[in-house]
C-alpha cells in the first residue's frame, strides 16, 4: 500500500490505513463527498462490533507481539525485514501496473524484484533503488479494478481483516495468488504451516511495529476511534477510486469546500 510510508513519520490517521492492510487494522472504501462520508457506512452496527473485536485483538495480541518484536530486534534488522516483505509484492505490482497500461512501471517492478532478490539478498537491501535508479512503483489489483472503473462497494469492517470493501477483498485475494510465498507453499500443507502462516504473522507484526507510535497516538487522542479510522480510510479510498486514472502517476486533484453551513446528513 502506498500509504505505508508516511506512517513512521507523521502524526495522525493514515497510519491506520497502512497498517490496516497488513495488520488487521484497516484498508479502503468509496464515497463522493469527503465530509459527509458517514452516510456510506450502511453496516455501522456490525462494523463497530468488528472494529471493537479487532481493537481488543490489537490490545491483547498484535500490539504486545509488535512490542516484543521491537524489543528483540534493532531498527537496522527491522528495516531489512520490511524491505524483504515489500520485495515479495513486486511481482504482483508488476502485473497490476501492466494491467493498468503502465508498462514502464511494470518493467521497473520486475527489475527491482530480480535485482533485489539476488544482489539485494532476498530483498533485504534496495540495491535496485539505490545503484540502479529503479524507484519503487507499488500497485495492486484493487487499484487495477479502480482503474477499470469497477465499483468499490460498501465500507465494511471484518474481524481480523479490518476496514475494507468488497473490491479491496477481491484485490487482496487476487494479489495473494501471485505472492511468491503463497505460490511456493501452495501444494504442501507442511510448508504452509511452517512458512506461509508465519509469513502472514510476521507481516502483521512488522506493520504494527512500523506504525506503533502513530496508531497508539490516534487511539489515545480520538474521541471516537472508529469514526476517525473510517474517515481516514474513506478519504484515502476516494483518491484510489479514480476511474480510468492511474493514481500513482497522475497528479491528484484534491479539493473539498470549506463550507461551514453544509450539514452532515443523518
Amino acid at each position, binding site marked *: 500500500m502506498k500509504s505505508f510510508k508516511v506512517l513512521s513519520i507523521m502524526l495522525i490517521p493514515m497510519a491506520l490505513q497502512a497498517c490496516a492492510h497488513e495488520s488487521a487494522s484497516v484498508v479502503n472504501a468509496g464515497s463522493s463527498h469527503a465530509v459527509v462520508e458517514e452516510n456510506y457506512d450502511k453496516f455501522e452496527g456490525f462494523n463497530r462490533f468488528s472494529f471493537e473485536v479487532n481493537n481488543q485483538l490489537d490490545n491483547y495480541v498484535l500490539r504486545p507481539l509488535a512490542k516484543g518484536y521491537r524489543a528483540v530486534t534493532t531498527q537496522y534488522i527491522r528495516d531489512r525485514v520490511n524491505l524483504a516483505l515489500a520485495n515479495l509484492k513486486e511481482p504482483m505490482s508488476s502485473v497490476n501496473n501492466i494491467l493498468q497500461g503502465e508498462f514502464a512501471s511494470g518493467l521497473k517492478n520486475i527489475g527491482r524484484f530480480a535485482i533485489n532478490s539476488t544482489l539485494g539478498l532476498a530483498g533485504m537491501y534496495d540495491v535496485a533503488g539505490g545503484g540502479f535508479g529503479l524507484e519503487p512503483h507499488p500497485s495492486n489489483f484493487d487499484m487495477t479494478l479502480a482503474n477499470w472503473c469497477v465499483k468499490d462497494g460498501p465500507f465494511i469492517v471484518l474481524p481480523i481483516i479490518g476496514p475494507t470493501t468488497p473490491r479491496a477483498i477481491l484485490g487482496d485475494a487476487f494479489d495473494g495468488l501471485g505472492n511468491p510465498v503463497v505460490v511456493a507453499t501452495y501444494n504442501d500443507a507442511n510448508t504452509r504451516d511452517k512458512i506461509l502462516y508465519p509469513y502472514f504473522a510476521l507481516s502483521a507484526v512488522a506493520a504494527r511495529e512500523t506504525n506503533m507510535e502513530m496508531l497508539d497516538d490516534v487511539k489515545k487522542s480520538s474521541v471516537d476511534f472508529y469514526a476517525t479510522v473510517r474517515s481516514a480510510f474513506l478519504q484515502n479510498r476516494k483518491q484510489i477510486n479514480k476511474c480510468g486514472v492511474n493514481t500513482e502517476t497522475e497528479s491528484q486533484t484534491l479539493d473539498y469546500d470549506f463550507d461551514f453551513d453544509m450539514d*452532515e446528513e443523518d
Partner: protein
Amino acid sequence: MKKIFIAVLSFFMLLSNVSNAAIDEIKATDFVKKVVKEGIEEIIDSNVSQKEKVDRFRTLFNKDLDLDFIGKFVLGRYWRTSTPEQRDAFIAAYRELNVKTWSGRFDDFTGKDFVFHGTTPSNNADQLFVNSSVDMGQGQQPAKVIWRVKQNDDSFKVVDIIIENVSLAITARNEYAAFIKKAPGGVDDLIKNLQAKTKDN
C-alpha cells in the same frame, strides 16, 4: 440589463481571483517553507529542553494556523448552535490536544526534508494547496504532504494539512460529528473529552 451586469461582474470577479491566485502561489509556498523551516530547525532539531520545544511549538501553532477558521470547519453545523463560550472552549481544547499530539512526534521529524512541488488551486479563491513530499528512506516512496493555505490580506495561514490523502480537518470533523451525535451533552461533552485527553499521562 441585470444579466449583463451580473455577467460583467462575474467576469471581473473571475479575473481578480485568477490574479490573486497568481500572487498567492509563490508567497504561499514561501510561507509554508518558512513554517516547515521554523518547525524543524528552531524546534525539532534545536538543542533545547522538551518543555521549551513544546512552548515554541505552541507559539508557532498559534501564529501560523488559523485556528478559529479550522475550529469552525471542524465543528461543522454544531458551530452554529454553539454559544461563544462553547466555541472558545472548543478551540482552546482542540489546540491543546493538537499541540500535545504533535509535540509527542517530534522525533519522527528529526532530519526529515520537505521537497516542494508547486501548488494546486482550490474551490475557494482565497485558498490554495501547497504540495510537498517527505523522503521516507530506502525502498519507500516519499510521503505526500499537502498544505491548505488561506490568504488573509497580506498574511497567510495554514488551514489544513493533508497527509497521504487524509485531511486532518475532515478527519477531525467526521470524528467529532460522530461523537456529538451520540453524546447526551453534545458539544460540552466533546470539549470535556478533549480536555481530558490533553491531560492524560
